[in-house]
């Protein structure tokens, strides 16, 4: 298939593996920020083919994993209301809240629907004027423009029965938070290519300078990921710390200006809690004052949320790269993809789910358990 097969070419991949092996002289810990990259690494078996010195830490860029428990519980409470059509991206349905998930709400009579685009939720609101349509607007800068567009269109259309439960998160503050952590192990970042295609790369220069850490904007196909790793290793080995773009076919330094304008209109920066990590200042978006009437949080004024995270779940430490999933005592025992205690075990890009798949097949030492 055009534009995909070129970036999955086995011979070129082999050359990149060889090159990475050639330039690597000592251990390096590199974090791929985005869940889509984790997915690609797992799906293609990339980390098994890297030299043992390279440790990939699966970062917090999986929206399913970091959406705070309180927000999931709010979503569940809103979705359970009679008259509400609750729309969500597919993989949010299985994320456990304090006591249940959206599938369970659906089985108990809630009208929960999977949509591919938030604009489909706007369409549903037009088709069902007697019902309240709520869209669960989560994700990073990548999903934000379409979500912003949905709210924008709802206002243009004068829809009174559409609202959005917004829990957007931003990449740069998360990188800063990781670097500020006294137990940080990350030595270089593969920045999320599609986030940068929206926001550009300029936001990352201050991070490179402040923390003297290589940041390489990286794509998602196997060759993209390998090229990102190669550039990171080269910087690390040479003692450089620079911002590099290994995904130029999709990312320009200024980003998508039209999308940024829309985002600035619809959203405003806010402090945001990250599941498993805690509150990171100025790390999220909520609806701006101009669009407050579309905010499902105020429209439904869901109170009485008492979150209880599983005491057994160590996903926060996993998301920060402090432990490997298989070092969590619940891993593979109380916590499996079949019965996840934390969101990292739910999504295929979740670090725990990924390790669960490996762990059944590959020896612990081969997946590189942190010391």
């Amino acid at each position, binding site marked *: 298939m055009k534009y995909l097969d070129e970036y999955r070419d086995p011979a070129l991949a082999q050359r990149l593996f060889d090159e990475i092996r050639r330039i690597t002289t000592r251990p390096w810990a590199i974090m791929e920020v985005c869940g889509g990259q984790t997915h690609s690494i797992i799906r293609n078996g990339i980390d098994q083919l890297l030299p043992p010195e390279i440790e990939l830490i699966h970062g917090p860029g999986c929206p399913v994993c970091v959406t705070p428990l309180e927000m999931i519980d709010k979503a569940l409470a809103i979705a359970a209301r009679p008259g509400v059509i609750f729309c969500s991206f597919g993989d949010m349905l*299985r994320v456990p809240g304090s006591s249940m998930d959206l*599938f369970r709400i*659906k089985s108990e009579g809630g009208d929960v629907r999977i949509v591919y685009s938030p604009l489909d939720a706007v369409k549903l609101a037009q088709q069902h004027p007697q019902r309240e349509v709520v869209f669960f607007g989560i994700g990073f800068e990548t999903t934000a423009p379409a979500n912003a567009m949905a709210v924008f269109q709802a206002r243009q259309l004068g829809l009174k029965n559409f609202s959005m439960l917004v829990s957007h998160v931003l990449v740069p503050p998360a990188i800063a938070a990781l670097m500020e952590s006294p137990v940080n192990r990350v030595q270089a970042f593969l920045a999320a290519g599609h986030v940068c295609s929206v926001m550009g790369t300029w936001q990352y220069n201050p991070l490179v300078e402040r923390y003297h850490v290589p940041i390489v904007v990286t794509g998602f196909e196997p060759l993209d990921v390998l090229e990102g790793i190669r550039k990171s290793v080269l910087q690390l080995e040479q003692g450089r710390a620079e911002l590099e773009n290994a995904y130029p076919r999709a990312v320009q330094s200024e980003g998508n200006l039209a999308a940024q304008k829309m985002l600035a209109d619809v959203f405003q920066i806010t402090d945001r809690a990250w599941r498993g990590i805690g509150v990171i200042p100025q790390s999220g978006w909520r609806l701006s004052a101009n669009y407050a009437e579309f905010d499902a949080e105020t429209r439904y004024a869901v109170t009485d949320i008492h979150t209880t995270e599983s005491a057994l779940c160590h996903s926060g430490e996993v998301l920060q790269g402090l432990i490997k999933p298989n070092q969590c005592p619940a891993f593979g*025992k109380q916590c499996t993809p*079949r019965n996840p205690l934390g969101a990292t075990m739910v999504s295929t890009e979740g670090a725990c789910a990924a390790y669960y798949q490996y762990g059944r097949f590959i020896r612990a030492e081969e997946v590189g358990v942190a010391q």
Partner: protein
Amino acid sequence: MSELFDFTGWTCPAPLRDHPAIVMGHGGGGKLSAELIEHLFLPAFRNSTNAELGDSAVIELGGMRLAYSTDSFVVRPLFFPGGNIGELAVNGTVNDIAMSGARPLYMSAGFILEEGMPLEKLALIAESMGAAARRAGVALVTGDTKVVDRGHGDGVFINTSGFGIVPDGVQIGPSRARPGDVVIVSGDIGVHGIAIMSVREGLEFGAPVVSDTAPLNGLVAAMLEETRAIHVLRDPTRGGMASTLNEIAQASGVGIAIEERKLPVPDAVRAACELLGLDPLYVANEGKLVAIVPANVAEQVLACMQRHELGKRATIIGRVTDQHAGMVVARTGIGGMRVVDMMIGEQLPRIC
């Protein structure tokens, strides 16, 4: 095993505990479906015939071996690119019977109709059931009709059941895969699931894909004429190739290793899967089969399949091994390995 994690008791840590009520995943053909059967239905039904859990049960009767199967169809929308619920209902049971090597003969059809279902649509569905039965060479000989209140069904639900006769010398079953055997798929995978998804509410997209629904008994008969040494036949419907191969690996106590590069996935299916974040290995098929055959007849069976209209794009995708018993692994396009697990519930479009 000492260097590996301790996997004892991993497969089903909490059977049925976390869902006190039925969720959609119990019908998805993956792990939840398997658990429902294993922990709720089988203990209640247990007997010597259902132990193998193939697509159909094989019963000895009057010196003959009968393959007997049933399937229920709840499809939304009722009419989709390339077919409708009616022909799906006939082909589905025909194929389940054919997967034991049997020649399907007679079928029943039960209809649960929703109040308000237009007769014109029902007639179209009935017509295509008749046509599908004639194409497959089976007779629809008995049926039943019930009507439920408006809002209690999606227009029409159909159950079909049927039986056929297993020819002498044919021993086909999910537990008969042996190390060294070769895994063949009869053609392009993921087609039916993508065709349905492309017209499902909330996911509509323009995909030039039509369902592959087709009766496979003719193809199976041709293969059995070539050789009776076939070990396993399955049609990978719900849960896709991944779930079917996992079921075979578990039932036979063997490992299965497939080559991702050899999987026949049409471009339109690949594109839709890339867009939605789905894996074609988990997408449903309705007119494809997986054959597991001894290596010494593999080329012969493959050539025979390729001569048949429904097996033109048949290809060898992997092998059965004595490694990683009960597990399916895939060599990825760039040469890595990944575990192809059984689906948990339903495959969900990913956010990014």
